[in-house]
C-alpha cells in the first residue's frame, strides 16, 4: 500500500496519463489504475471524484455526461492544458525516479 502523501501526489499524473490515452469515467479509471499497478495501488473510491472535480476546475480535464449502452456516465477527457501539465509531471517524476535509482544503486554497490 502506498502512503497517504504519495497517493495524493501521484493521483494527478496517474489520472492524466490514463485520460491522455482515451476518455474514461470514474469507475473505469479506478479499475485501470488497479490493473496497471498489479493491484498495488488501490484508492479509496470516494477520493477519486473530488480529485477529478479539482482537475476539471483547473481546466486540465473536461467532463461530459454521456449515455453509452443505456448507462448514463460522466466521461472525462484531457485538455491541451492537461497534456502540458502531464509533460511537466512526467519530467518531474523522471527526475525523482532517476535520482532515487542512482542513489539506491550506489548504496547497493557500497555494501
Amino acid at each position, binding site marked *: 500500500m502506498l502512503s497517504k502523501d504519495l497517493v495524493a501526489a501521484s493521483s494527478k499524473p496517474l489520472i492524466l496519463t490514463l485520460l491522455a490515452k482515451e476518455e474514461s469515467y470514474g469507475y473505469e479509471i479506478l479499475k485501470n489504475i488497479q490493473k496497471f499497478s498489479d493491484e498495488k495501488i488501490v484508492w479509496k*473510491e*470516494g477520493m477519486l471524484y473530488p480529485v477529478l*472535480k479539482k482537475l476539471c476546475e483547473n481546466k486540465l480535464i473536461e467532463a461530459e455526461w454521456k449515455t453509452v449502452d443505456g448507462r448514463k456516465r460522466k466521461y472525462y477527457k484531457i485538455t491541451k492544458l492537461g497534456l502540458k501539465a502531464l509533460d511537466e509531471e512526467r519530467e518531474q517524476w523522471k527526475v525523482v525516479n532517476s535520482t532515487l535509482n542512482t542513489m539506491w544503486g550506489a548504496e547497493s554497490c557500497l555494501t
Partner: protein
Amino acid sequence: MFNLESELSKWKTNLLEKKSLTNEDIEELESHILDKVYDLQSSGYTLDEAFNIAKSDLGNAELLEAEYIKVNTSISIQQRIGYGVLGFVFINFMFEIRHIITIVVSSVFVDKLLSAKQIDIPIISDLIRIMVGTSYNNNLSLFAFLVSTILTIVIMYLIFLNKVNIITIYIETIERFKIKKLLNIILLVVIPVVLTFGTNIIFYEILVKVNIDKYGDIAVINGLVSFLSNLILFITFTIELSKNNRNNRFKLVALTGYTVLLLVFESIPISLNLILMKFGVSNFSLSFVIYVVISLLVIYYLGKSKSKVTLKAREFLEFSNKRVIFGVFAIILTISRLVLMPLYTRYFQAELIGNISYTICVVRYVTIVLLLCITCLSSIINNSKFNTKLNKRKYI
C-alpha cells in the same frame, strides 16, 4: 426481497443531506455504485451483497462530505464579490423597472383615479396611510400599490423559481462569455452601467412628463412596496441560507451581494441621516459626504483581498451557521427601516428627499462600477501571479 432502486434512493437521500455535495456529484457516485454492483454480480455475488460492498467501498457519507468540501468551496473571493455586485445590479435593475412601470401605468390613469369615488380597502389602505402619512391620496396610492405589488410578485417569482432562476441564467450567460479577459471586463462593467444609467435616463425623461406632485405620491408608494419586498426577499434568502444548498450557489452569492450592498448603501446612510436630523444638522452636502465616505470605505475594504472584512465575509459565505445570523440581521434592519419610513417621509421635505435619493443613485452606481473594475483587475492580477509561479516552477 432486496430492491436495488429503493436502497439506492435511501442512500441518495442520506447524501442529499450532506451540504458539500451537489446533485451532480451524487448522480456521478450513483452511476459508480451501479457499475460496481453489476461487476460484482457478474463475479458471483448476490445483488444484496454487491450493493453493500459497493456502498462501503465508496465510503460513508461523512467521509464523502469531507472529501468534497475541499473542492466545492473553491469559488474565489473575487468571484464572490463579482457575483454579489452583479446580483445587486440585477435585482436593483428589476426593481427599478418596477418603479418605472408603476409610474407610467399610474400616471396614465391619474385623472380618472382622482375624479372617481374614493375606494377604501380596509387593511391595505390603513397600512398605506400609516406609512405614507400626509401625502396619502386614496385612489392613486392604492392603484400604485397594487401595480407595484403585482410586479414585485412577478420579480420574486423569477428570482426564486428554483428550476429556471433568472439570476443564475444571468450570471451563467456572462460566465459563458469569458472567452477573453478584456471582453469579460467590458461585459461585466458595461452591462451594469448601461442597465442602471440607461434606466435612470428613461426614468428622468418620464419624470419630466409626469406631474411632479403625482410622482411624489407614486414614489412614496413604491418606496413602501420596496421595503416590503426587501423584507420578503431577505426572509426567503435566510431560508435559502439555512438550507445550505450548493446547487444554488450563484443565486446565494448574488442575493448576499444584494443584501450587503443594500444595507451599506441605504440602511446605514439613512439611519445616520435620521440620527443627524435628530440633532438638527441634516442637509444635502452632509448626506453627500456620508455616502462618499461609506462608499470609499466599502471599496477600500472589498478591494483589499486579505482585509479582515473580506475574510469575515468569506467566513459567512462558507458553510457555517453564522450565515443565518446574517440573514436575520438583514431582516431586522429592514423591519427597522419599515418603522423608520413614516418618520423619514414626514420630517424631510420632498425636495430634500429628491436631492438625497439622487445623491444615493450617483454615488451608488459609481461605487458599483469601481467595485466591478477592482474585481476584474484583481482576478487578472491573481491569475498572472499564478502563471508566473507556474513558469518559475518549470525552470527551477
